[in-house]
């Protein structure tokens, strides 16, 4: 009941005029009712939405901080601060606590200077501030060799691979999906095979793609296309099938035929949902990126990550991984905001955005 006010907003309603009074009363009644966070299928207030949205990032980061900064939580290793008399130890070396303890004991029993150390986490878990710093320094640190790319160049290369993979997949996948959803014959002649093919892991085609397309971007884009395309056809076909048949029937009784029915009713009818599907699929395309970039000559952000991991610069590794996340989430938010502009009539927006 509390929704009826917002549902009709923006229109002066002649029909409702008679019931205007009780309708006006409902929002006030709604605020008087007890509001809790755990109400089944009830939307949160805008403030609570914002709060919980921020919390969803704060909670994992807080957990990471606890593990990194509270010395008695985890910290299974010791970082050497002073090697003492032990000549094979160096400042900054890490070792398991048990090993360190036995070295210390040995040194003491020999009446030599024992090494000093502080408890630390393994090198593969840098602290948040180190990663935060790396997010900046990774961009300004020159590449190890002159001909290898800077981080921003690596990223741009990855974005291009994703873009072309997704575009090529969509050029074929979207129309085919719509046709499958619209015409049962299309669905029947293509969907069983696509169902089979989508279970084949895209990276399995890596070697084949290299043999056919060489070692540069061709096979990488191909992997992303293979990873996206088959899901895309099936998802969009399903979305198309969910179009309200009554709209098609209404169009039929208005004299709409054949191609116009597809072009003027089916496609505009599914467009907001199609757009949502594409957003989800673009996310999936990113998940194929790393595998795709390992094929042939390693390139893009994957090249950066593997390089940095080789030098044990794990702060840079995390920074690069998070940058992928930021780009992905950023794109999705931009696309979601764009959807409000593009589809002002869409009622599903409130639920997702």
């Amino acid at each position: 009941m509390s929704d009826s006010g917002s549902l009709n907003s923006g229109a002066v309603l002649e029909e409702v005029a008679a019931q205007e009074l009780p309708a006006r009363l409902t929002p006030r009644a709604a605020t008087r009712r007890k509001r809790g966070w755990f109400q089944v299928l009830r939307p949160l207030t805008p403030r609570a939405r914002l709060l919980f949205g921020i919390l969803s990032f704060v909670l994992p980061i807080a957990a990471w901080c606890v593990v990194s900064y509270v010395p008695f939580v985890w910290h299974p290793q010791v970082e050497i601060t002073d090697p003492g008399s032990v000549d094979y130890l160096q400042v900054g070396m890490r070792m398991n606590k048990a090993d360190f303890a036995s070295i210390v004991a040995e040194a003491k029993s020999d009446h030599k200077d024992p090494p000093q150390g502080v408890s630390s986490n393994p090198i593969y878990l840098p602290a948040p501030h180190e990663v935060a710093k790396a997010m900046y320094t990774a961009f300004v640190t020159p590449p190890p060799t002159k001909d290898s790319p800077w981080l921003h160049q690596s990223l741009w290369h990855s974005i291009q691979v994703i873009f072309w993979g997704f575009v090529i997949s969509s050029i074929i996948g979207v129309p085919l999906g719509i046709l499958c959803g619209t015409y049962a014959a299309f669905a029947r002649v293509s969907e069983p095979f696509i169902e089979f093919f989508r279970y084949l892991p895209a990276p399995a085609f890596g070697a084949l793609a290299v043999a056919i397309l060489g070692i540069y971007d061709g096979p990488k884009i191909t992997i992303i296309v293979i990873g996206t395309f088959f899901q895309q056809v099936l998802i969009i076909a399903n979305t198309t099938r969910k179009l309200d048949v009554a709209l098609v029937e209404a169009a039929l009784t208005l004299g709409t035929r054949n191609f116009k029915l597809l072009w003027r009713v089916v496609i505009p009818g599914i467009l907001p949902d199609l757009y949502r599907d594409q957003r989800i699929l673009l996310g999936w395309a990113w998940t194929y990126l790393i595998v795709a970039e390992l094929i042939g000559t390693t390139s893009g952000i994957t090249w950066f990550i593997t390089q940095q991991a080789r030098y044990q610069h794990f702060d840079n590794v995390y920074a690069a991984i998070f940058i992928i996340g930021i780009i992905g989430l950023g794109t999705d938010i931009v696309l979601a905001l764009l959807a409000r502009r593009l589809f002002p009539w869409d009622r599903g927006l409130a639920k997702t955005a």
Partner: protein
Amino acid sequence: MTHMNKMIVPGELPSYLDQSAAVRARFDRLKAREVILKVDHLSKVFTTGKRETLALNDISFETHRREFLCVVGPSGCGKSTLARILAGLEDYTSGEVLLQGQPVTEPGSDRGMVFQGYTLFPWLTVKKNVMFGLEINGKSRHEAEQQALQWLQLIGLEKFAECYPHQLSGGMKQRVAIVRALANQPRILLMDEPFGALDAQTRARMQAHLLEIWRKIDITIVFITHDLDEAIFLADRVLVLSAHPGEVQELIEVPVPHPRSTNQFITPEFLATKARLEELIHKGAGHDAEEDEGTYQMVTRLTDVTDDVD
């Protein structure tokens, strides 16, 4: 619901067959007009798996130009199926449906339809919804826009031309749906319980709107409803169907004079017609309908309120 007027003793009412001179003259003029829709021995069998269900059996009737025909019947009498067949959305098993002599085989712009659900295109503004059929049928954008605005004026919604359907109330949506269908200038307007989803007050206002539109333009209306008051209030004639299978029970000429107003709900002609419809519907529903929907077992009373107020 149908038992509401049980108290009326039929003897006190005139026969529903009695027509005043004015009403009789009106029917004479109506029947002298050309036949727009002729349904001839129409039957429809639904096949689900191996089971065949006879939904409509041997339906025959005619409507004349500018006639308002209501189709009523108990649930399961196939009145919606009939509307869909007339629209061309459903095929039929035997018989014939002729629109101005031409057999109906598929949907077309010569038969407009208004559905119970709101079938306005959500991605189009109100104006563009009304323009849709006009553009599909070859009118230029400019011409379509001019006509659409005129239609919106007729229903008093020109202020909402640029709104999207979700911004309108249910009654407003159905008014737009009606003019969207009418904009194509169909020979006949099929309405399948168009006001069924509206609340009582809105429905009453919509009925008055519809009569007003119908008075102003040359349109024949076939209106499906289960609301007997609505049928009598709107119709020139009421086609009563029985259920399982759907068959024509009677084609009743409504003796309530025109122009119609809500005051007529308690006139003797109105009540007599309603009494007759109730009698037919009750009979037509038969025994199996009641068995289908279950009956109350008046054995136990499951209440623990002790104040004896019923």
